[in-house]
């Protein structure tokens, strides 16, 4: 049921389909996790925060699926730059939600600690016998973490291949689910040993994690909207593709100097290449199509390139 992806090269289409399938599976699985966690949470603060984190994790999955529906729309008169920003918008909304809820749960968990609330963790009746609810919580937490880690591990290589930031952060977050489950389990075990504060401390730890994730993602989303230059998928360095572009352009004998300016728009790059040609180049304009084609061939992510012949480079704007 996939709409034709005009910007992805053919060999990546099945990978994209795999990613979509994994995201549907994620959503179905997370819905069951939310039900199970809700039933087992009792008055535990760490379970409550873990549940919120589970609800929040639906956002990247839903964003990916919704945005991937828009990507196939070609640019038109009304939206001449296309619809690629659908991803960026989804990313921003998700980050804001994550950050805001992170703030809330940090505050909420800190308050339970400060007010010295002793959580009452009673029992659950199974087959006519009463068992401590804490054990049910262990079960719920394991169910919420183990499949998530497996799915996350499967998504990560797809995210790298597709150079997809949303999928990448989603996969990394899922893979790290074990930390939340472990923290909550330690908290509940602490309660079992009579340390009433263990649960609130665990909740605080998980909350700070959520806030940190929200902050990181928000910073990235904002950088995207500010048209930051393309980075590697882990956001640490300039995408080496940019240097490849510079080198390719420089390899033409008529090109004296090259500077580039690119930004990300969804999963593809838009940009300008500024060229100072050698002054004695004959019919320099006819050289442009060949250069343009060579650049476009470098990678499928290079989607829209404008080549400008200039006398000097715009100050501070390109490199």
């Amino acid at each position, binding site marked *: 049921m996939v709409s034709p992806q005009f910007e992805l090269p053919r060999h990546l289409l099945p990978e994209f389909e795999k990613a979509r399938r994994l995201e549907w599976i994620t959503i179905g699985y997370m819905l069951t996790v939310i039900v199970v966690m809700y039933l087992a949470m009792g008055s535990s603060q760490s379970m409550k925060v873990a549940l919120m984190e589970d609800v929040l994790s639906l956002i990247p999955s839903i964003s990916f699926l919704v945005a991937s529906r828009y990507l196939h729309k070609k640019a038109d008169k009304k939206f001449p730059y296309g619809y690629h920003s659908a991803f960026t918008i989804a990313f921003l909304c998700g980050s804001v939600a994550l950050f805001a809820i992170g703030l809330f749960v940090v505050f909420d968990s800190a308050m339970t600690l400060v007010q010295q609330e002793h*959580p009452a963790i*009673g*029992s659950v009746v199974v087959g006519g016998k009463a068992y401590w609810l804490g054990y049910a919580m262990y079960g719920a937490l394991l169910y919420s973490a183990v499949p998530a880690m497996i799915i996350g591990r499967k998504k990560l290589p797809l995210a790298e291949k597709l150079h997809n930031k949303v999928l990448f952060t989603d996969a990394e977050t899922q893979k790290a689910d074990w930390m939340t489950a472990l923290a909550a389990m330690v908290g509940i075990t602490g309660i*079992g040993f009579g340390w009433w504060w263990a649960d609130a401390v665990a909740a605080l730890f998980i909350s700070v994690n959520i806030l940190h994730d929200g902050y990181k993602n928000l910073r990235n989303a904002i950088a995207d909207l500010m048209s930051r230059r393309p980075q590697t998928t882990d956001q640490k360095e300039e995408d080496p593709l940019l240097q490849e572009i510079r080198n390719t352009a420089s390899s033409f004998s008529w090109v004296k100097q090259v500077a580039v300016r690119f930004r990300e728009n969804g999963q593809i790059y838009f940009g300008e290449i500024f060229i100072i040609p050698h002054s004695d180049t004959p019919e320099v304009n006819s050289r442009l199509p060949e250069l343009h084609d060579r650049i476009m061939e470098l990678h499928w992510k290079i989607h829209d390139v404008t080549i400008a012949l200039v006398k000097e480079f715009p100050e501070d704007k390109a490199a």
Partner: protein
Amino acid sequence: MVLLFFMTTACSQFPRDPEQTMARVNRGILRVGATHHPPFVVIDNHGPSGPEAELVSEFAAEQHAQIRWTISSEADLFEKLKQYELDLVVGGITTRSPYKSHAGFTQPYARHQDKKYVLAVPPGENALLLALDRFIISHSQ
């Protein structure tokens, strides 16, 4: 590591009471607060009676503890419970009680007309809560 978890939880008392309520009960005294709320708890010249009073008496007997009754209003009793001055509160409390945050509620010992009737223990005293739950479950059979 998961195995270590379960091993530690299997030994000795688990869960435990942060305020050592169960330990005190095992030393012989169960401090119960009761409020007049017929037919669940009836307070008269002879002291507290009614199905909840009987339930509590049986539990105390099982734990080899003597009951020390405190008769007062619901509000006062829950306040004392929250301050760990009482071990148990009875008085026709339902799961919809506004004092939920002051206490831990047991499994319902009776259901009637959409309402679930429970006993209340101090917040966080999970060993006592589990013991009561097990008692209630075994008695409703």
